[in-house]
């Protein structure tokens, strides 16, 4: 195979003195991945060195950089921190080195369900689950009480909408035209029992979307209602995770769906004097809200998996390093230091984790329920197509938006339309 041949050639040239250097492309974080790289370099005891190279902040920009380099058959990519939805696009053309069976067996043990699904393509494990993200429902206890909601039982989006309306408060959701909007749409569609894509493994020309369904309409109804009633605040059309958090901490904050990073961020804000301790004490958490009352919600799933570049001259070493990185003890440590939840179930039992994240068990349960975004090589087109037709939230209409998205995405996948 050409791929292997070219990798071999490059490998032959890489004969420097000292241990081989593995380059790990990481998403930006608070320095945790760089620290793990150092630890693993030490543990390797001269077998390899890991060097970290940082990718852009935005998930789709990260994908852009990696896909470009891999398409260029770049031999310098040994390890990559990959956002799960973008994995099939890289796995399909063979840009990811196959996971050795023994490694696959070891790393899939005791991993939360959502993370395993996100690491798999065409029934094969193609990346190693590292950390797994999921959104919780965060709430201000005072507002929930004021609205008479029992937060110990699952709540629905309609209840939240009503509570926000009666309490004259804002809901923290991500309505900006970016990946986070797709996260929201997908979670709503999945929670309503549908799927954005019915057959994710299909070829571009045959992809069938599941938006024109009751589930798609429900999702559109919820987003449209929050948008047009102004329940997401004036910042909704540009609100990303950070903006939702700001809104939630503000005077009119009530409920918010967001990743667990917010817990660390709010604690830091209190230490910094930017946030009253009283606000922090008022905060509670629960599982992602339901769309249909009584049917379990499917929270968003995110996180990072570790992939090994197919063109790396040191695939074996890279897999050794990857196994070191995803070690459950390191995942626990990373959770505490950077606020990103582990993919390994056992890591949640770590006493330090339990202390730093009192909601650790809820996160673990949320990950068991979570639904990944569509696993398709055309994810970028699907996601951008959704954002194009479901933005701004106030313009989302249950009767029109699902159809518009379907038409656009199908036309784009057939090469008949621009995005």
């Amino acid at each position: 195979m050409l791929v292997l041949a070219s990798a071999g050639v490059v490998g032959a040239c890489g004969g420097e003195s000292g241990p081989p250097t593995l380059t790990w492309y990481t998403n930006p974080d608070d320095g945790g991945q760089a620290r793990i790289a150092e630890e693993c370099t030490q543990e390797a005891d001269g077998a390899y060195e890991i060097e970290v190279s940082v990718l852009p902040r935005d998930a789709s920009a990260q994908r852009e950089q990696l896909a470009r380099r891999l398409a260029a058959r770049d031999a310098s990519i040994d390890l990559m921190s990959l956002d799960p939805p973008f994995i099939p696009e890289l796995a399909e053309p063979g840009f990811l080195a196959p996971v050795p069976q023994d490694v696959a067996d070891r790393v899939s043990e005791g991993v939360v369900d959502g993370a395993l699904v996100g690491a798999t393509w065409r029934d094969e494990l193609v990346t190693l689950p590292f950390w797994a993200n999921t959104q919780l429902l965060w709430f201000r206890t005072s507002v929930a009480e004021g609205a008479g909601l029992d937060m110990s039982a699952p709540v629905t989006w309609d209840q939240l909408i009503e509570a926000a309306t009666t309490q004259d408060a804002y809901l923290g959701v991500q309505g900006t035209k970016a990946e986070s909007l797709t996260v929201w749409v997908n979670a709503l569609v999945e929670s309503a029992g549908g799927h954005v894509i019915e057959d994710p493994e299909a070829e571009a020309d045959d992809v069938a979307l599941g938006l024109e369904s009751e589930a798609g309409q429900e999702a559109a109804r919820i987003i449209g209602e929050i948008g047009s009633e102004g329940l997401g605040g004036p910042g909704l059309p540009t609100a990303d995770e950070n903006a939702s958090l700001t809104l939630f901490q503000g005077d009119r904050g009530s409920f918010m769906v967001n990743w667990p990073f917010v817990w660390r961020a709010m604690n830091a804000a209190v230490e910094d004097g930017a946030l009253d301790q009283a606000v922090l004490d008022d905060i509670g958490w629960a599982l992602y809200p339901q769309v249909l009352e009584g049917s379990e919600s499917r929270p968003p799933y995110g996180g990072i998996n570790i992939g090994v570049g197919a063109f790396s001259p040191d695939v074996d070493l890279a897999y050794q390093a990857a196994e070191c990185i995803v070690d459950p003890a390191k995942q626990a440590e990373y959770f505490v230091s950077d606020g990103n939840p582990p993919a390994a179930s056992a890591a949640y039992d770590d006493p330090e984790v339990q202390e730093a994240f009192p909601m650790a068990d809820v996160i673990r349960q949320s990950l068991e329920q979570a639904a990944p975004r569509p696993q398709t090589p055309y994810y970028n087109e699907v996601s951008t197509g959704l954002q194009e037709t479901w933005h701004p939230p106030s313009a989302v209409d249950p009767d029109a938006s699902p159809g518009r998205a379907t038409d656009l995405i199908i036309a784009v996948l057939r090469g008949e339309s621009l995005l």
Partner: protein
Amino acid sequence: MSTLTGRQKAGWAVITVLVLVYALFPVAAIAATSFKRPSELNQGTFLPQSPTTANYEQILVGGAQELFLSALRNSIGISLIATAVAVVLATLAAYAIARLDFPGKRLVLTTALGVSIFPVISIVTPLFNLWRSIGLYDTWLGLIIPYLSLTLPISIWTLAAFFRQIPWELEQAAQVDGATSWQAFRKAIVPLAAPGVFTTALIAFFIAWNDFVYGISLTSTEAARPVPAALAFFTGASQFEEPTGSISAAAVVVTVPVVVLVLLFQRQIVSGLTQGAVKG
């Protein structure tokens, strides 16, 4: 110039203030933001309440140091080289255009004009594709070459305009003294042309320094990523948190040299950009 009346003086004072506010206010705004604490970012005020240098520490000695300093190094290095190459090539070309009569002179000038209006984005795709197949992707050279398309045309035009004003007789005098055309160029013209060349270099440097499209499209690591592209890579405490403070601080750091250069050389820059027309 006749002395100004009191009313005129007041008028000029108002005008000066207006111009200063216009030109400097956005710079002041981002500078103010760069001194804010995270907690002050969302308060909707212009000035920070308790200014902090934490953002500068973050990019210069802290967590974002590697990202920012390597980008700064890349930007300076790549822009300087692209400027130097462009100015050398342009000096030769502009001399020929201003002093010599040769067929195709207009073709050179028209080409320069054509290149300068070229939509950069149009050649990014093919360059990206070519670079990745010949290994120039994410290298200094891979940016220097396209930067020449930005710096070379303006250098040729600016220098040609400068050279046209250099007293023609000096070169002839040198030639009469037995110098060849090349010697005449070196001995008689270069000293006179040096200020023009310097000005041209300044203008060309600003352009290379400003590039964003090539910077984000043709690089992917700290090996070659220039500052404007790196601004999109800063991160807060987690990847979901806005790095407003770091970006503002980095923006100020890269703006300071511009302001200094402008302060020192405003006369030259203005004359470089207007010269041909003024004296034409």
